[in-house]
């Protein structure tokens, strides 16, 4: 069964999953009215984010159409995007 996710802005490179998702499950969401899917490569809890585009190390994580952080490592499509691989732009260059 497909799980649902929400994109906040068409420019975003992450979506928020609306149900708990297990590794290998397909997640569907809508971009500009048309249906899109992404396959989870790991389990992701409801309310957490999954990458729908590749995000290179140092690249911005985009949600609501604006940067909400930067990738500390390479993030692949379907990967969980959270504190283990993303940091606040306010801390950029601190470490």
């Amino acid at each position, binding site marked *: 069964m497909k799980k649902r996710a929400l994109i906040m802005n068409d420019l975003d490179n992450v979506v928020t999953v609306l149900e708990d998702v297990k590794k290998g499950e397909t997640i569907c969401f809508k971009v500009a009215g048309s249906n899109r899917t992404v396959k989870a490569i790991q389990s992701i809890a409801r309310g957490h984010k999954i990458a729908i585009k590749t995000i290179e190390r140092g690249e911005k994580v985009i*949600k609501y159409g604006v940067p*909400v*952080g930067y990738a500390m490592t390479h993030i692949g499509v379907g990967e969980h995007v959270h504190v283990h691989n993303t940091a606040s732009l306010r801390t950029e260059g601190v470490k």
Partner: protein
Amino acid sequence: MNIRAYVRADGRIGIRNKVIVLPSVACVNNVAFAIAQRVKGVVNIRHEVGCAQVGDDFRQTYKTLVGIGSNPNVAGVLVLGLGCERVIPQELAHDISKSNKPVECLILQEEGGTTDTISKGIDILSEITQKIQQERQEVTISSLKIAVECGGSDYTSALAANPAIGYAVDKLCDMKAKIVISELIELIGTENFLEKRCQNPEIALKLRKAIERVAEESQKYTRDELEANLIPNNISPGNVRGGITTIEEKSLGAVSKGGYQCPIMGFLSYAEKVPDVEGLYVMDTPSYDIESLTGMVAGGCTLALFSTGLGTPVGNPIVPVIKITGNDKTAARMRTDIDVDVSDVLTKSRSLEEASEKIIKEIIEIASGKPSKSEILNYSDIGINRIGPRL
């Protein structure tokens, strides 16, 4: 789009016809309550300030009291004084009367005590009430000044209710309405997003400095927690468990209720008068909902949009507060408090665009006279923000 509202003598537009008893000091709160109970349609403004205050703190309190009395939703005012307080009741009444409405002043120590004051107050208010009767007229939605607020937030606030309000706010600004957002601590991390929308560099600079001030204050008081978590500012372990990764993400979830495109036309101090030029304004308030709403109402907002995930019942004595939730369970459980349910954005993939239309429809109905849930339940919360010691 049009609403049916009250056109005041000074040209400003109110959407309620409130007559209020406004104490100049907390000492007469009970007398104000007793008077208001006896006259239909009258509400007392209960607050905890008015004396033993100095400097900026006193000035902010005074400005807030004048602002509440001058709000276009208020048709008539009885200023009720004790007689020895720091806020001079006659001055307060005089400054409110500049908004061109019936304003009277009554001082307990001069009237001979509680019972005589109550009796005289009832007489004055029944006369004011007879004077202010008037019909609603058709005016454009541009005459609205709307406060946007969120409280009791959960993940649905950031994903559904706040963005839906944001879409509505962009449309309302296009229709020339004035919108006010507040709570500076929730803006930390959104400086770049907001700056691009500032009408000029002066506003952008003011905003950046104010957010930086609040960020520093919050760090000063929460250093231990911050060092333990290594997460900057106002983001809790619960937030992280819930899926929020950075302060930018958390703040954007809140700030999205201020729209995405509409220009920011000014940065306002607490209770500062909201200008008549359309667009978004940012007001300097704390993140305590009741004090924040009070500041925006004192600035002249006549209606409030309030997003809540967990559900909060907050209301205001002179302004209808429209509760909007993105949480289907809260919408069902707290149906006597919630005005608009946009949870189908999450449960049925309804678009934020459609949800915003639902909000605008409710704004038009409530602005034109339909009571909000907080009004039906007689909520009358007032909290005046203190910025100095009580001496």
